[in-house]
């Protein structure tokens, strides 16, 4: 027990150390202490730290000033907290997993109202929910009403569609829109097709043959 406690105590500073190492040379020096402090706070609250580090790296890459980077990381931390609260309210036992916090934070950032997120959480009591959240968010991005979009995805879940296929459901609805149907017609058409919405095409042989892994970063 003492060993685990010791390791847990070490992990905090280790997490911060790894964040600092990643930020050095990529983010304005003036921002690093404040970002580091926010990362530590997230870690202590059981929240994922990677989204905060990514936001800081993004700001550095986009050559944003230090104060704006810190502000953006603070906003990100707030989003993670909101996501965690929604998960706990939705019935997930604390500590909620960092992966699920990230998933729900995505959903909120993409414009899903909290109540709609909660409806999806109730319909999918256990992870993974990323595909479901993104599928509803895709519908919202196409100006479907959030609740109607959630209805469709929840209906798809109810018909036994695996999470991976939920993105095909939103794609099918968007496809019907592009065919000239109204939003209501598109939802009705796709609903009728459930669970047999067309699957998205797998990558072709040519695409696989051409695919490359990102080049490894060159050492500073």
């Amino acid at each position, binding site marked *: 027990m003492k060993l685990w406690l010791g390791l847990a105590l070490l992990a905090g500073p280790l997490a911060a150390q790894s964040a600092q190492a990643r930020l050095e040379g990529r983010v304005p020096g003036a921002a690093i202490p404040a970002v580091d402090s926010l990362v530590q706070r997230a870690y202590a609250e059981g929240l994922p730290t990677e989204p905060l580090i990514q936001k800081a790296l993004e700001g550095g890459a986009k050559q944003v000033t230090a104060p704006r980077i810190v502000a953006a990381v603070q906003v990100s931390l707030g989003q993670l907290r909101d996501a965690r609260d929604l998960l706990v309210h939705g019935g997930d036992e604390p500590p909620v997993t960092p992966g699920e916090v990230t998933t729900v934070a995505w959903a909120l950032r993409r414009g899903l109202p909290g109540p709609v997120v909660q409806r999806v959480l109730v319909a999918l009591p256990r992870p993974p929910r990323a595909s479901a959240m993104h599928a509803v968010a895709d519908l919202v991005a196409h100006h479907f009403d959030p609740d109607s979009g959630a209805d469709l995805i929840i209906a798809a879940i109810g018909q036994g569609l695996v999470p991976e296929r939920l993105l095909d459901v939103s794609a099918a609805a968007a496809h019907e829109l592009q065919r*000239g149907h109204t939003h209501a017609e598109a939802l009705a058409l796709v609903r009728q*097709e459930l669970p047999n919405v*067309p699957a998205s095409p797998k990558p072709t042989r040519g695409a696989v043959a051409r695919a490359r892994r990102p080049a490894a970063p060159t050492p500073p």
Partner: protein
Amino acid sequence: MDVTGAPSDAEVVARVLGGDSEAFALVVRRYEAGLLRFAARMLGSRDAAADAVAESFVRAYRHLASCREPARLRTWLYRIVANRCKSHLARRPIADVSLDEAPAVADPTDTELNLERAEQLALVQRALVQLSPEKREAFLLKHVEGLSYEEMAAVTGERVPTLKMRVHRAREALLQVLEGYE
């Protein structure tokens, strides 16, 4: 090669891709009548149809290597024309139909039959115009161009159940309009 000795579509495609571009004229002669009829009924204008189909043929020639099943060249061509018609309709609504439309008849001296057929055709065309582009397309492909539902799926990219529903609704809508004119 079929029983008449004419080269099959797959043979013609192979010849064109092999460098014999003049062989493409065979494709044009073979399919222009059906494609023109389809486009004219979709767009309500023979001139627009001629432009759409001519452009479609040129596009088909330039992208012939991407025709995955040369034996199904016909459905591939209909697909190109159908998409061109939809783009055209998205920019401008269907033109009103001219009553001068005169169908070909077996006996050109029978003017009374000609006139009656012309009037009937104008009525049907007017009813067709009132369908949405998707229903119009589905009805034409099924009942005028004689495609199977599977071929229609290849042309439109839609699933067979969706197409069946569209054809059914198109029939119902057409009947309603035709009965309204009585």
